[in-house]
């Protein structure tokens, strides 16, 4: 059934679990029949989408689980969903990285460096997602709080589903 996830991974917003999501995503993509040369970008893209969601939950102290749903119907599709309310602060990260290094993007130079680094990370994360994934869609969660990043990749070869059975004659 299209839309029904084959595998769903939900995790508390901790960096370690982003690794788990990458691991699961790549294992599933490989088994689903995605071309070997796409696996590295899938690893990176899933990591970025999940890191973004984790950072967002953590930045507002939200302990709710981040969701990753994966399906492999006609394409390998991954949906990463956060549960943070859509506020204006969420779009603060679209400045130019070079400008940030000049100090012009962040306004006065009093910005603490750790915050500044987070902004760079958010920018780079979005740049990577946009640069890596041909079929990328970012949208508000329908009828709820949060954002969903949907990405998909083509399947290279179809899966077989044959399995042998012991013949009932000749056995006893």
């Amino acid at each position, binding site marked *: 059934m299209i839309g029904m996830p084959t595998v769903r991974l939900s995790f508390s917003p901790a960096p370690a679990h982003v690794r788990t999501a990458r691991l699961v995503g790549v294992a599933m993509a490989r088994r689903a029949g995605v071309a070997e040369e796409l696996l590295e970008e899938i690893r990176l893209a899933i990591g970025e989408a999940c*890191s973004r969601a984790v950072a967002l939950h953590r930045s507002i102290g939200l302990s709710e689980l981040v969701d990753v749903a994966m399906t492999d119907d006609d394409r390998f599709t991954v949906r990463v969903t956060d549960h943070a309310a859509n506020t204006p602060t969420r779009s603060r990260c679209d400045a130019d990285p*070079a400008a*940030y290094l000049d100090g012009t993007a962040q306004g006065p130079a009093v910005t603490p460096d750790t915050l500044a680094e*987070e902004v760079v990370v958010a920018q780079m994360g979005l740049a990577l997602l946009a640069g890596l994934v041909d079929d990328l869609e970012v949208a508000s969660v329908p009828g709820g709080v949060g954002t969903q990043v949907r990405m998909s990749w083509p399947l290279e070869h179809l899966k077989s589903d044959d399995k042998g059975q012991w013949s009932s004659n000749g056995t006893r």
Partner: protein
Amino acid sequence: MELGMSARVVDGHTVLEVCGEVDVYTAPRLRERLIELFDLGSRHAVVDLNRVEFLDSTGLGVLVGALRRLRGVNGTFGLVCSHERLLKVFRITALDRVFLLYDTVEAATAVPGADAELPA
């Protein structure tokens, strides 16, 4: 998969060789290690990424932070990165125009530097 790091001084540059995955999980340790080196007085640093298998935006953020910190003290910060897999990450984020990228440690340390030997 795990992060490994080892530092040495080459021609007045502190060279930190990194291997494994630099990601949202391990990047904090890279940041810690760089801070440690900078606090020990390193002003000319090179991070050798040639044995890094995976680098994400959090890793990039740590590298940008290091670059900013050394720029702030008139130091230099070079990256050694020759594998296409990682170069792609720098290109997509346009950070290939922000960092000094070298193919080898030799090339990266050829520019003048003045870091003392590391304490054991």
